[in-house]
């Protein structure tokens, strides 16, 4: 038999150890903790405006913060109980942000939410109504970037969406939440994909899944048989879950520098987002919970939890067998792109795809030495940038030059830092440069 060559993106990429410890674990519903803290800025864009006050009684699914402007989202209570504080709380970085604290009392839901387990296949709403539902439900990209979904559903004038790509790649090591979702909620996902296709007005959809999840590929292939949705297995390579990389891998189209997938007629949604859209449109359920992978080499039970937004991270770790003694770092997100938490009391937010516990041995950093000009970072950069040069420029504060070197194209995947034999903190400096260049661009616009 001739071995079939799997598709992947062409430029750069790395293959870190997969460590999918929680693969195959069923999604476990986690009962809410006693107190939840729901930040009002869980998305990319303007923070939402709080509309509840201290002492208010709220139900599950009740709106507690309203979107401010187009690029912003609604935020709902994930539990029922009493609003005990509207104050600043530390977020995952330790900086304080406005949040609503709710003391849990019972589990009373808003009546309009359909809590039954029946699958609603019939899509009765039209494109405009679908978009409206998604705005109301406060859905954001659940892959981690948390960009408001309704913005992506609104095709800019003069552009036309041709393909919907559903991202089931899950290229980050350790994480399995999307995998679990595809295995357990495949029929709901199918309806979700059809909803998104209707909302966008496209005829064709492709679901991309990396070949390290053969069970998910065959499950989804089976369920989408006879529809306009094709399921495509992909060669395992990080960062294939990046929008631009996925478009390149599946359609061989290249998103221009500074552009978006819509510039080449494509819109990409994560499977988690599609599932949330199904629940919002068919079940009238706002985004109040998500699947989170809690994992680590020394954790007793690496698990996939369905968690209410606002639950403290410490509660999740407790439910997965408690914090192992040998823990150096707790990472919010995957080990490649995630950030270490400054404290375990921070809440799970819409963008929390995983909690990864890193042991001392794994966390150990080698000493930073000089760049040896091996150009490995250039070879692995999926955006075709020169990370070593970017770091030098950032150190010398040559931010104008960084802009012409297209630093804003960097997707912060961390492949450069991962591969550097001198263990240079390339991405740290590139991020600094990106922030400075963004400032430059803003100040130029202001003039």
């Amino acid at each position, binding site marked *: 038999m001739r071995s079939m060559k799997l598709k992947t993106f062409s430029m750069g990429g790395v293959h870190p150890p997969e460590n999918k410890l929680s693969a195959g674990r069923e999604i476990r519903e986690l009962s809410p903790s006693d107190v939840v803290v729901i930040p009002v800025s869980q998305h990319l864009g303007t923070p939402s405006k709080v509309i509840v006050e201290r002492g208010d009684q709220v139900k599950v699914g009740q709106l507690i913060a309203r979107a401010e402007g187009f690029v912003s989202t609604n935020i709902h209570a994930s539990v029922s109980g009493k609003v005990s504080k509207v104050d*600043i709380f*530390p977020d995952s*970085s*330790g*900086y*304080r942000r406005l949040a609503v604290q709710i003391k849990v009392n019972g589990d009373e839901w808003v009546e309009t939410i359909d809590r039954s387990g029946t699958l609603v296949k019939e899509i009765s709403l039209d494109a405009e109504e679908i978009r409206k539902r998604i705005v109301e439900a406060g859905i954001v990209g659940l892959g981690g970037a948390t960009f408001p979904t309704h913005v992506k559903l609104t095709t800019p004038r003069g552009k036309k969406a041709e393909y919907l790509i559903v991202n089931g790649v899950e290229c980050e090591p350790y994480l399995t939440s999307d995998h679990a979702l595809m295995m357990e909620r495949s029929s709901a996902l199918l309806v979700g994909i059809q909803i998104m296709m209707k909302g966008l007005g496209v005829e064709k959809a492709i679901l991309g899944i990396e070949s390290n999840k053969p069970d998910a590929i065959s499950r989804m292939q089976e369920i989408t048989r006879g529809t306009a949705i094709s399921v495509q297995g992909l060669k395992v390579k990080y960062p294939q879950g990046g929008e631009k990389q996925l478009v390149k891998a599946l359609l061989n189209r290249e998103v221009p520098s500074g552009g978006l997938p819509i510039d080449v007629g494509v819109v990409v949604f994560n499977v988690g987002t599609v599932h949330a859209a199904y629940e919002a449109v068919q079940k009238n359920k706002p985004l109040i919970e998500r699947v989170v992978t809690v994992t680590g080499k020394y954790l007793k039970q690496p698990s996939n939890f369905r968690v209410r937004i606002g639950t403290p991270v410490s509660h999740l770790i407790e439910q997965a067998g408690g914090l192992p003694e040998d823990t150096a770092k707790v990472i919010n997100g995957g080990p490649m792109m995630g*950030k*270490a938490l*400054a*404290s375990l009391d921070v809440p799970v937010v819409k963008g929390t795809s995983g909690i990864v516990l890193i042991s001392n041995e794994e*966390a150990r*950093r080698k000493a930073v030495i000089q760049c040896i000009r091996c150009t490995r970072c250039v070879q692995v950069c999926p955006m075709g940038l020169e990370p070593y040069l970017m770091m030098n420029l950032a150190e010398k504060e040559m931010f104008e030059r960084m802009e012409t070197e297209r630093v804003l194209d960097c997707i912060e995947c961390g492949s450069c830092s991962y591969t550097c034999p001198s263990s240079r*903190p390339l991405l*740290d*400096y590139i*991020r*600094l440069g990106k*922030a400075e260049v963004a400032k430059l661009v803003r100040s130029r616009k202001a003039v």
Partner: protein
Amino acid sequence: MNQIIIVTIITLVGIGTAAAVILYFVAQRFKVYEDPRIDEVEEALPGANCGGCGYAGCRAFAEALVKNESWDDLYCPVGGNENMAKVAELLGKEAVEQAPQVAVVRCYGTPEFRARTNEYDGAPTCAIAHQLYAGEGGCPHGCLGLGDCVVACDFDAIHMNPATGLPEVVDDKCTACGACVEACPRDIIELRKKNKKDRKIFVCCINEEKGAVAIKNCKVACIGCSKCYDVCPYDAITMNNNLAYIDPVKCKLCRKCVVVCPTNAIHEINFPPRKTEKTEAVEEENK
């Protein structure tokens, strides 16, 4: 043989002369007039090229000094008033006197007062750490202790104290060029008026959080209680966003605020020891 040498010499001399003539005319044609005083002024300036004046080096500053009518915005903090007067004499202008300043670090979050709740092992610069997270002590305003200010200083006037993990300014060396102020991503360092004997009174905290939150992370944080504001006889203290600020110009160094501060966030430096109650009583009797 001889002939070759003679021909070579004649040719080279010919080329040289022709080039000299061409160069002379080109130089005449494209001559750029530069005020000779600029060189003189540059010579008189300290030559540190630190950028403390706001210009790209001493040459650019010298140009501005010669060309600008008004000297209101022109001041070299490194040379100080003395140097400015010298330059003014050279140019026959009047220098604007400015009070000398010194850099002051407004954070005292030592490990003793601000317990470390986590550890940072990323790229060792404040700019990057600041972007990533609130800091090892959990105070989002406090010093990160990675020494961007030390790197920025051209005068060897600021050093990290390994015991406290905080930078310390050497007043005698500090020229108030402002490089450290610029380098600090948290705006902790401030240029304040230089007093006699390097005496200083300032609020050693910039945390604008509510008192209860601030004190949780750091025992010497300003909690915005306004006690210093109430006691100040010179209206030098302002309260803004839960934070007291002492105006260095209005402050008369009376030290009344230092005593009332419940968290010891107001520091007095280079003052003689205070009179105890006992000595005060004795003095009272003597009167």
